């Protein structure tokens, strides 16, 4: 594989984490505009851990997930009882606040005579753990897709279980769920924390892939993209969001045919697709049909 292909495949894997995070919340009936905030929290936490304190990446990734889950829990606490647009806007406001805090964050240490750490709008350079530890691009690709595969397996297990049924019921009819004795608020708070951790894990890997992050990386564009990926790929299965990322980054950016027109092609495609299939390519009905056919 050449470097370009490896780069594209790594990016598909990285963005899939935040797309899955958005997907998880949509399944539970909440549309978040703010998953990019937790992606950013993960990126900054892991970057600070490895670049400034020499903590190995696996530990840093766990710390990032903890930070992402905590942040999502704290944001979810006052906002999860909101519905629809109110929730979307509250999460957007929270994510924008995170981004501005990153812009205001100046926190550096001298390492080998050079200041390292977040430097406000100048960004955060030198997150070089991957290179310093001799991980080749192919190795990092394997790491990203290995983590992603683990997440997908977890999703598949959950979707088959009682937990998965509860999750979908929560999205379809929260009142019914409440009548059946489910603590809707508590359950949703848990879902939000898991989604936050997932986005943060993606962010931690993203920071180490790029070695440089800046607050702008985590603006609303990333958040709405991840929603769009989940929706065009399909809400019927965990592979839906992956398909969405693949269509955008893989086919359109990767093929280089549409260079300069990529967004016009992608935008038109998405708008037309949503008219034909409002719940995405792999929607619930298609997934059900596929399962009956092949399983």
């Amino acid at each position, binding site marked *: 594989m050449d470097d370009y292909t490896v780069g594209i495949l790594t990016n598909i894997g990285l963005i899939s984490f935040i797309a899955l995070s958005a997907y998880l919340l949509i399944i539970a009936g909440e549309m978040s505009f703010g998953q990019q905030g937790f992606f950013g929290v993960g990126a900054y936490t892991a970057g600070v851990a490895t670049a400034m304190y020499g903590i190995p990446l696996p530990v840093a990734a766990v710390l990032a997930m903890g930070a992402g889950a905590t942040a999502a829990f704290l944001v979810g606490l006052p906002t999860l009882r909101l519905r629809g647009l109110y929730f979307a806007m509250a999460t957007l406001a929270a994510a924008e606040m995170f981004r501005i805090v990153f812009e*205001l964050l100046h926190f550096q240490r001298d390492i080998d005579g050079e200041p390292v750490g977040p430097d406000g709008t100048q960004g955060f350079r030198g997150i070089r753990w991957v290179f310093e530890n001799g991980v080749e691009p192919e190795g990092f690709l394997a790491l990203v897709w290995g983590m992603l595969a683990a997440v997908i397996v977890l999703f598949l297990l959950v979707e088959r279980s009682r937990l998965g049924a509860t999750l979908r019921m929560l999205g379809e009819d929260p009142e019914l769920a409440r009548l059946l004795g489910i603590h809707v608020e508590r359950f949703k708070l848990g879902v939000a924390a898991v989604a936050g951790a997932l986005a943060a894990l993606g962010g931690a890997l993203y920071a180490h892939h790029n070695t440089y992050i800046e607050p702008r990386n985590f603006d609303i564009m990333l958040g709405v993209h991840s929603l769009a990926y989940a929706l065009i790929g399909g809400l019927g299965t965990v592979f839906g969001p992956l398909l969405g990322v693949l269509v955008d980054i893989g086919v359109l950016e990767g093929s280089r045919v549409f260079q300069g027109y990529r967004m016009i092609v992608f935008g038109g495609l998405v708008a037309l697709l949503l008219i034909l299939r409002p719940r995405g390519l792999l929607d619930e009905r298609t997934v059900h049909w596929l399962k009956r056919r092949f399983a």
Partner: protein
Amino acid sequence: MILDLIQNSFDGLAMGAAYALLAVGFTLVFGVLRRVNLSYGPAIMVGCYAATWVSVAFHSNIVILLGVTILGSVLAGAYVEKLCFAPHRQGSAIAAMVASFALWMQFEEAVTLVMPKHLYDFPPMFEGGPLAVGPLLLRPEALVMLACAIVICAALQFLLARTRFGLAVRAVIDAPIAAQLAGINVPRVLLLVFLLASAVGGLAGWLIVSTYTQVTPMLGMWSTLKGLLAMMIGGLGSLRGAVVGGVALGLVEAHSQWFLGPQARDLIAYLLLFVLLAWRPRWMTTQSAS
């Protein structure tokens, strides 16, 4: 100190008038369709870019540019309505919103393909600097913005409350099926409201770019975010709320920028929205459309 406060309040009021107009356009669409149009700002940006193109090519005067801005916004709005809102009228609100985001991407790439520079100059509304009123500096543009906001809101209130078209709009909001049975062409009413909102947005866009005399591709996101913010602060779905929300946002921003700087300004605006949403005072839950 007092003078600074007054000066800031006046600047905030002027900015707030622009936000109010943006929020009014947003509210019209949300109030009637119950859908969020993320392409609202980008459609305004298309209008502003069309006017910039005309200005660069023909050096037209500012009034013609106003017409071009509104026309461009309305055409872009019609495209959005046909592709994102008409097909999802009975369907999913999320799908409509994500589709409108997809068109946002299109608009942004299209304007940067046609006009690739990062920043274009836009002719100013008035030649000459601000007016000095005693120790205060008043920009004449600010007065025009305020006047426009007041006149447009009054006109829209009149349109909704007193005309046959307004009656049709209210009927569609309250009972779409009954409205259809009574012979109202519901899709047409929805389209017209959408175009009206785009025209108001175009006017707001022209006021903003001819006050700040520059156009950038960030204008789309900026207008959508500020319009949404003002609409949500004002309590979603009422025109009066949109105006109050816009003015409140402008005032809060002007004062926090002066005291704490531009980043803190944005932080405080979002914090205000977050706290209001979490706390949800009574006026934020009203859902009336006019």
